[in-house]
């Protein structure tokens, strides 16, 4: 069975709420029924077939072609199956995702994978602010799963993060890991200002020395036994994180944020 493919006919001026087009909601629907679903487009509703040409039948494997940065809520609360986005994605990609896999070939907007519970999200381009974070006012961000970003991420990545892995091959913006409760964020590139601001627990694993902060205390150089296991878990990914040359177990450990609970850690690779 070929993938259920939505090809964008032309870019609408207003943003589109794509949340009805997730695998579990389409699984028993005929193409005509899918075509008749209405999507919120700015302040009006628009039929799916007005926006997309539809082909294929496998609702467990959805492809969105010609996607661009105004298609919001792609894969919202996805519960199994796979969504492939060819192009960019808008805000709230994979919001509250429960399981399954989403891959985006381009860039994604704000709040990608925010409050994600499980599953895998792969972003081949850059991600906006609040990647894997909590919605405004909520206290619990990403609770599980893995996010892989091959480009750079914006500010506040992993804000209020509770569990899971955020793997960033590029750079991270300011406040990376802010208010983290637990989980792991790994950054191969550079990190911005206020790294781990108010983090309570969790691990920020860095390839490059971050800016010095009075809120983190140096605990010295260590060889940590869990790191080879963590890197082994990345082997299945199509990523620089899977390379043997990326793995290390010798780190400088900084504990913080000391103005908060202080049980978090920044681990910086010692080359």
């Amino acid at each position, binding site marked *: 069975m070929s993938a259920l493919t939505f090809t964008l006919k032309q870019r609408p001026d207003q943003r589109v709420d794509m949340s009805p087009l997730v695998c579990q909601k389409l699984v028993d629907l005929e193409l005509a029924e899918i075509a008749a679903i209405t999507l919120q487009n700015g302040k009006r509703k628009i039929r799916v077939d007005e926006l997309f040409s539809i082909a294929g039948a496998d609702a467990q494997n959805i492809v969105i072609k010609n996607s661009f940065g105004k298609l919001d809520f792609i894969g919202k609360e996805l519960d199994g199956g796979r969504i492939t986005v060819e192009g960019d994605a808008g805000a709230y990609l994979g919001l509250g995702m429960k399981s399954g896999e989403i891959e985006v070939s381009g860039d994604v907007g704000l709040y990608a994978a925010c409050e994600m519970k499980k599953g895998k999200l792969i972003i081949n381009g850059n991600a906006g602010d609040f990647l894997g974070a909590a919605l405004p006012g909520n206290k619990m961000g990403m609770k599980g799963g893995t996010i892989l970003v091959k480009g750079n991420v914006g500010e506040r990545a992993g804000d209020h993060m509770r569990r899971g892995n955020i793997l960033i091959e590029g750079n991270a913006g300011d406040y990376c890991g802010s208010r983290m409760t637990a989980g792991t964020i790994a950054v191969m590139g550079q990190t911005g200002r206020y790294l781990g601001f108010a983090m309570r*627990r969790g*691990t920020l694993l860095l390839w490059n020395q971050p800016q010095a902060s009075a809120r983190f205390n140096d605990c010295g150089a260590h060889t940590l036994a*869990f790191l080879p*296991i963590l890197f*082994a878990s990345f082997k299945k990914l199509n990523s620089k994180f899977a390379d043997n040359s990326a793995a290390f177990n010798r780190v400088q450990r900084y504990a913080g944020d000391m103005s908060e609970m202080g049980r978090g850690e920044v681990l910086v690779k010692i080359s």
Partner: protein
Amino acid sequence: MIINGVAIDATFAEAFPMKATRAIITAQNEKWAMISAQAMTGFATSVIACGCEAGIERVLDPSETPDGRPGVSVMIFAMGGKGLAKQLETRAGQCVLTSPTSALFAGIDGGTRIALGKNLRYFGDGFQVAKLIDGKRYWRIPVMDGEFLTEATTGQVDAIGGGNFLVLAQSQPQALAACEAAIEEMRKIPNVIMPFPGGVVRSGSKVGSKYAALGASTNDAFCPTLKGMTKTDLSPEIESVMEIVIDGLTKEDIDKAMRVGIQAVCDLGAANGIKRISAGNYGGKLGPFHFHLQEIMA
């Protein structure tokens, strides 16, 4: 049945259901993984007084261990799940947590989950760190040599304890040499342990005693010095009897271990003073699993 001059008795070993678990200990090198494993499986020969039966299953190559370091696989057997969990936790806490450079991992993925390092984490006094990696929870406990890494739980499965056979020889050195040969072969079989010292027990027991307080006592029918004063099971030329006890995950595992062990003994044969192979058979009082020697060796 006679193999290489050794008579195989038409009898069976009686074994009983147990609960078992496996843990993997790794360390900076094999020496320290083995030291930790030996400590963890010490004083665990028999459930009669040790609370569990434990042994080293095998040495693991770094490629087989979760953290890529040299390791040792240990198995622990107990009569019930609660007792097993208690033994595992105290032994892990006193013998592995304390052992330099060690780390501790689950050796069984399925089964009922029981605490491995789940409660040891409190030793970290609040400084412990949890990591959930590929669905498995690990605890990083700060200790004086660095960090003790342990998986939170391991699997508990149904198992069988008390598989056994007796080696009847013309002399004590010959009995021991035969048992050593058997153990060497049996240690190559996975999923089994031989929990007694060096895998061999010289004080096989029978059920009951003349003393009311004791549930087990010396197996007088197989004691060579009592040949003239008890209802002996020994012929005049037998001067020494030793037993090998096997605990295993399944009946097939114990079958296999008994077969290679008995074969190794028989390979030495009558020429090396080995006269008979028998088994601990208590008339069905002990357990539901019966390992018939002649069927195993057929």
